[in-house]
């Protein structure tokens, strides 16, 4: 589905590359989370996958990046957007600014692709149902909450039927309720649609619950790549400045005092932490 082969990219006039010798493969219908400290190259990787690099951001791109077997560098952006959808951090700037209702806003991409009106209406209505946007379909996209706005942005991209969705910190500017709404929408997508989701996110508990794979970037390089449990409990995360979940931190501290069962891996979610501490308590009760 996605194949990066020794990709290095340097922005114009930059001294150091934003991405350095990145090689990875992402399979179909998986949810891949990308984590990393600020300036690690997360957004650059997303921009590359969406084709903004090198079509919008000119610079020096080395190596080969393929999406669906098509070389990103040689495929026109207008064609790439039908394969790869991109959702930005700021829900406000993603609105076209030219539409009166949320329903029309969702249709904007299809209008640009010249989709016939009847087919467009069907696709828009289907996406409205999928993302539970029925209540706000006829409201102005500027009169809805941040969480709803981001769901509209997600729906506006998904309606174009991309096989890959790249989400660059989609909840960064949202309150907890808005973030939850967006996460639920992404979960609906991955559960019901065969779409590959690549998400930049720092909410590690959510990543641990829903991601199939976590890639950690640091200074433009892949430093960790594996299952959420393996990556999110790695001591390297704290070293490079990535927030580790409170559950992992608590269990690690308990482990130092031999209060965490040695046979158990460190937890990444609340459920796993509760389970571990229950087992630890049982063990000490039996000892006592």
């Amino acid at each position, binding site marked *: 589905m996605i194949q990066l082969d020794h990709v290095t990219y340097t922005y114009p006039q930059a001294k150091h590359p934003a991405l350095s010798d990145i090689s990875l493969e992402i399979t179909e219908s998986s949810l891949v989370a990308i984590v990393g400290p600020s300036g690690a190259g997360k957004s650059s990787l997303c921009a590359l996958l969406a084709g*903004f690099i090198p079509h919008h951001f000119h610079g020096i791109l080395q190596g080969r990046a393929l999406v669906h077997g098509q070389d990103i560098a040689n495929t026109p952006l207008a064609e790439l957007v039908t394969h790869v959808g991109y959702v930005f951090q700021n829900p406000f700037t993603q609105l076209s600014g030219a539409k009166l209702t949320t329903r029309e806003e969702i249709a904007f991409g299809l209008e640009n692709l010249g989709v016939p009106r009847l087919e467009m209406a069907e696709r828009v209505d289907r996406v409205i149902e999928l993302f539970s946007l029925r209540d706000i379909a006829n409201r102005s996209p500027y009169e809805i909450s941040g969480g709803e706005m981001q769901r509209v942005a997600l729906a506006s991209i998904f309606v174009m039927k991309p096989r890959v969705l790249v989400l660059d910190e989609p909840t960064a500017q949202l309150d907890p309720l808005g973030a939850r709404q967006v996460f639920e929408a992404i979960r609906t997508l991955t559960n019901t649609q065969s779409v590959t989701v690549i998400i930049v996110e720092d909410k590690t508990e959510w990543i641990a619950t829903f991601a199939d794979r976590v890639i950690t970037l640091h200074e433009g390089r892949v430093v960790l790549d594996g299952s959420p449990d393996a990556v999110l409990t790695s001591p390297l995360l704290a070293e490079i400045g990535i927030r580790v979940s409170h559950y992992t931190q608590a269990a690690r501290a308990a482990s130092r005092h031999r209060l965490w069962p040695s046979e158990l891996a460190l937890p990444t979610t609340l459920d796993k932490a509760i389970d571990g501490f229950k087992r630890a308590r049982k063990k000490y009760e039996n000892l006592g």
Partner: protein
Amino acid sequence: MLIGFSARWPHLPVALFVFLILPLAVWGQLLRELGRTTLAVIFPFALSITLVQGFFYPGATHVIFSLGPFALKEEGLLFAYGTLGKILLLAGAGLLLLFSTHPADLILALVQHGFPNALAYIVVTAIQLLPHMQAKAMAIVNAQRARGLETETNLWRRSRALLALVGPLVFSALVDVHERALALEARAFSAPCSKTSLKELHDTREEALARWAIIVLSIAFIAWQIGGL
């Protein structure tokens, strides 16, 4: 407007405003909105044109009354009346269009009749996003005030404060524009195909006939005016 502007009869623009624009505003339930805004637009013009033309119209001889060295003259008032009538018609017709037709619908209609899509987008977003840009500017003003910037003091300090306001406003606007450009690309804005539209504009036969009638009438009236010279 063409008829009003090309007419030699000075009362025609006012007559068109009273007997065409106002009834249309009543029909569209926009009378109060239109009346209030038209008055607000017209009043400064009315005041300045009446005073300037009334007192200083070149070559005027019929004095209505004198005030010291100044004399209000009939020719000047007539000229001011004619000019104001045209401004009234222009403002009334423009505002009626603005209040009765949403810019997005207007642009959609224009695009469907061959207006370039990118240009239409620029026009409609400029209108739609203006209130949001104003809100953003206000947020920046408030943020700077919270950090001790004085924006309601003497002119010198206010002009210095302007620099601290313009910088963040321009910078954030540029960032927004850049991200919006990318977001548009992500939604196939520059796809090389003919665009379609979810929204269907209902252009009735009566509306089309009315449009043609307006065009034919305007041309005929202008031809009559030119021929009658």
